């Protein structure tokens, strides 16, 4: 029987395109599904926006719901200063959401189940948000690392703790998405293995569980995209309005 981890295998779909140092860069299934996510998302949003009705139909309603959700998220967590980051945060949300959802289709590859992908996203966002904070507040930005009104004598302990806490953000952000997607997909594969192993006699029980877990996985796929984006909003807010 196929290993439950086989679904995460990276397969080269092309000859090496070019080299970065000694690492050959090829077009992999992971890259293919990233393109697919962007493509499907673009088709969905363009189709949803093509009719522009006052009373939205199903497709337009869905797109408006996603738009409203991200807009509300930025309004609640960042405020008016966050408005100009809406395009980026919306794209981020849609990219992760469609990556997760495409991964729920059997035989597809889930690119968000690789720490390399999620950490690259989280780390890039972390760097950009830190730079936004530094450009906006100058050196005053570093007051983020020392709580307001704490006695100066506690600085040698508090500052390292705050710095570590700050550096742990991209780690928790990326591990959360990666771990949730990986665990969910492994769980589905293992349970599906039980169905086959127990056959027509006892296979019904894991099959029922599998149906429930599949529904849960759709929830997780959506929720993780939501959490990733809302945390980016919260971090952006910290950088813009130093608390």
């Amino acid at each position: 029987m196929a290993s439950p981890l086989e679904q995460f295998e990276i397969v080269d779909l092309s000859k090496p395109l070019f080299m970065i140092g000694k690492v050959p860069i090829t077009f992999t299934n992971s890259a293919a599904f990233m393109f697919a996510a962007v493509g499907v998302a673009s088709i969905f949003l363009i189709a949803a926006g093509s009719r522009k009705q006052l009373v939205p139909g199903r497709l337009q309603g869905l797109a408006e719901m996603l738009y409203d959700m991200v807009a509300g998220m930025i309004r609640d967590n960042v405020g008016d200063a966050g408005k100009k980051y809406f395009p980026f945060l919306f794209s981020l949300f849609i990219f992760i959401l469609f990556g997760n959802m495409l991964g729920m289709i059997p035989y597809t590859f889930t690119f968000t189940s690789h720490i390399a992908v999620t950490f690259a996203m989280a780390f890039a966002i972390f760097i950009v948000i830190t730079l936004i904070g530094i450009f906006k507040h100058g050196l005053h930005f570093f007051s983020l690392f020392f709580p307001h009104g704490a006695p100066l004598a506690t600085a040698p302990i508090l500052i390292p703790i705050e710095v570590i806490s700050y550096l742990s953000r991209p780690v928790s952000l990326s591990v959360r998405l990666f771990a949730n997607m990986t665990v969910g997909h492994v769980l589905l594969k293992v349970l599906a293995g039980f169905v086959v192993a127990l056959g027509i006699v006892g296979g019904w029980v894991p099959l029922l569980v599998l149906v429930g877990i599949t529904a849960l996985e759709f929830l997780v796929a959506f929720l993780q995209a939501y959490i990733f984006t809302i945390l980016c909003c919260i971090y952006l807010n910290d950088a813009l309005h130093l608390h």
Partner: protein
Amino acid sequence: MAAGEKPPSLDELDARVKAAQQVQERRVGKPGGGPRGGTEKIGVGLRIGIELVAGVVVGTVLGLLLDRWLGTKPWLLIVGFLLGSCAGFLNVYRVAQAEEARRKTAAASEAKDQSRSP
């Protein structure tokens, strides 16, 4: 709509949409704020565990790297682990605090809604 009848104005439509939304809100809660109820709680639960671990891991790895760089094995590893644990707890504390604040504002706005409508 019968022929000759004037199409409803946008204001009228707006009022009708608002009324329908209020009925819906009373039934299933406020929309637009993303997932709510049980879904939201799962989200918070998933967050907290990883926040704790991330602090410890980052602190420990930082200590290890500094040790290798400065040749102070194993002291900075130990310090890094302890500070990282503190940072992990700080992360969890912040998540819990933000959650508490949000719950309070939600409860307050709900109470206001109820006092407004008889």
